[in-house]
């Protein structure tokens, strides 16, 4: 895995859940090459369910969180007024950095102003796909979305993450059905399928033993009452 991981994808594909989950996992695994760990929340498209809502959790696990200029004031505006400070983790070679973009090509656009940090080799661009999202139910539709993100960012997507899910109604069958489509998408686009996610505690990895690699996702973003 490269130093900077940029997570892009359709609205609701699970980018933020993946970004927060990945940060939590990395914080538990000490890596000598990267003594520092940061999440850069670049979601300026949507004022709800952003990784900055979990700022305290991340800080408690020694993950720095960078977002817009209002971040420290708890303001919930959807303004593309980014703090210059968020360049620090992008420049710091000792900092493993996860960049959480907003949804779709429109939400990814904000990254272009930082393109000078993405000229070298030390980054990856992941596209998260959920084949149960209404607008990406087919391989063709998912491909259009991934291509739109690449066009917008003028950067190749380096890996796909299958996060096919229906929140708490996710089953092993739904994940497997998404996995089959993700493999097809990966073949069609020539982009490796890096992982298939499953919601930890909801679906057992044994039920997905034929799928590799698997990645458990802790559900950090969704308050429990939303499933009542």
């Amino acid at each position, binding site marked *: 895995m490269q130093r900077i991981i940029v997570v892009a994808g359709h609205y609701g594909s699970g980018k933020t859940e993946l970004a927060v989950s990945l940060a939590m996992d990395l914080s538990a695994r000490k890596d000598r090459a990267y003594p520092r760990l940061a999440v850069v929340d670049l979601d300026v498209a949507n004022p709800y*369910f952003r990784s900055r809502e979990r700022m305290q959790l991340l800080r408690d696990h020694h993950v720095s969180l960078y977002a817009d200029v209002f971040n420290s004031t708890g303001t919930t505006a959807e303004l593309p007024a980014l703090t210059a400070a968020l360049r620090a983790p992008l420049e710091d070679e000792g900092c493993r950095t996860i960049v959480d973009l907003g949804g779709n090509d429109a939400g990814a656009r904000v990254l272009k102003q930082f393109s000078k940090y993405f000229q070298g080799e030390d980054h990856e661009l992941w596209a998260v796909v959920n084949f*149960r999202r209404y607008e990406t139910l087919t391989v063709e539709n998912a491909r259009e979305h991934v291509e739109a993100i690449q066009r917008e960012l003028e950067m190749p997507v380096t890996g796909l993450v299958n996060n096919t899910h229906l*929140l708490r109604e996710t089953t092993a069958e739904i994940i497997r059905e998404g996995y089959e489509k993700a493999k097809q998408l990966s073949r069609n686009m020539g982009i490796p399928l890096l992982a298939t996610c499953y919601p930890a505690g909801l679906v057992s990895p044994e039920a997905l033993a034929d799928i590799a690699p698997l990645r458990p996702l802790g559900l950090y973003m969704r308050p429990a*009452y939303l499933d*009542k």
Partner: protein
Amino acid sequence: MTTDKVLMKGNEAFAEAAIRGGARLYFGYPITPQSEVPEYMSRELPKVGGCFIQAESELGAINMAYGAGAAGGSVFISSSSPGIALMQEGMSFLCSAEVPLLAMNVSRGGPGIGGIQPGQADYYQVTRGGGNGDYHIPVFAPSSIQEAVDLLYEGTELAQTWRNPIMVFTDGMIGQMMEPVKLPDYKPVLKPSEIAGQRNWACTGYDDRGGDRERRVVKSLRMQPEKLEEHVENLFAKYARAEKELARWESENLKGAEVVFVAFGTTARICREAIEILAAQGVKAGLIRPISLWPFPNKAFDEIDWSATKAVVSAELSMGQMITDVQLALNGRLPVFLAHRTGGMVPTSPEVAQRAKAVLEGLK
């Protein structure tokens, strides 16, 4: 029915459900937290032969809706709290002129421009009306995306049946969250040539060179007080029927409940978790969830277990607005208390549970 469930964001699902239910005209202006609705409509309506217009303001949007509705179009509009406030004059006109409209408020914290996090402080606005004169708008408050989909799918037909605006009142949390939904099939829509026949009041164009029908007039101006009084009496005969036919609610766990929550939308979901927390602490609690806010489901309160229930708690994302209707429905039969946060803050389930416990303690 789409056989499989799909994952949708509330706002996208609302827009798709309105289209599938027959809405073909949308006029609006973006405002958080519902901007995905106009975004979706601008992209999807032209594909089904519909029309999207971004109005210059919410005032423009509601008056476009008035005109298009008067011409027999199936119109859907949506906005969020301050935007709906701007539309109130138009709502009064539409009610007076009996023009159908499906409207949606994805509400946020107020007053004024307020904030962009979820709120329910437009309860008075949507149930009492901010416009002038004697009128009512049936208001439905879904607590899940699926329920919102079902209400919006039904909404165009309801608006046409009642020849009145129908409001779906939800909040930013339900607009912004994701949920698995089953989308219903597309309803057939009238061809333009069928509108004049099917909607026999709509102003579809009078042919003064020997047309085969009487002139039609859609208006709210009545300069003779006797005529205006008669018109309003007729509207209220319609509203009296609506009060009987449109009251909807769900109740849960009322039998043996020491305390009963009354909550709609997002707050009802929080109360469900609070009920579980209270059960674990040995306190039985129930829930009355109004689905229609006007007409308020007064009958729901007759289901209360009078031998067990000691108090009713109205849980709201406001300083307490629905509580007025809860008190009217109970008519002094039980004490009513408030559990609330406002300004875009959402109470946690333990906070709501704690409030109910404190209420019961206080009554001892």
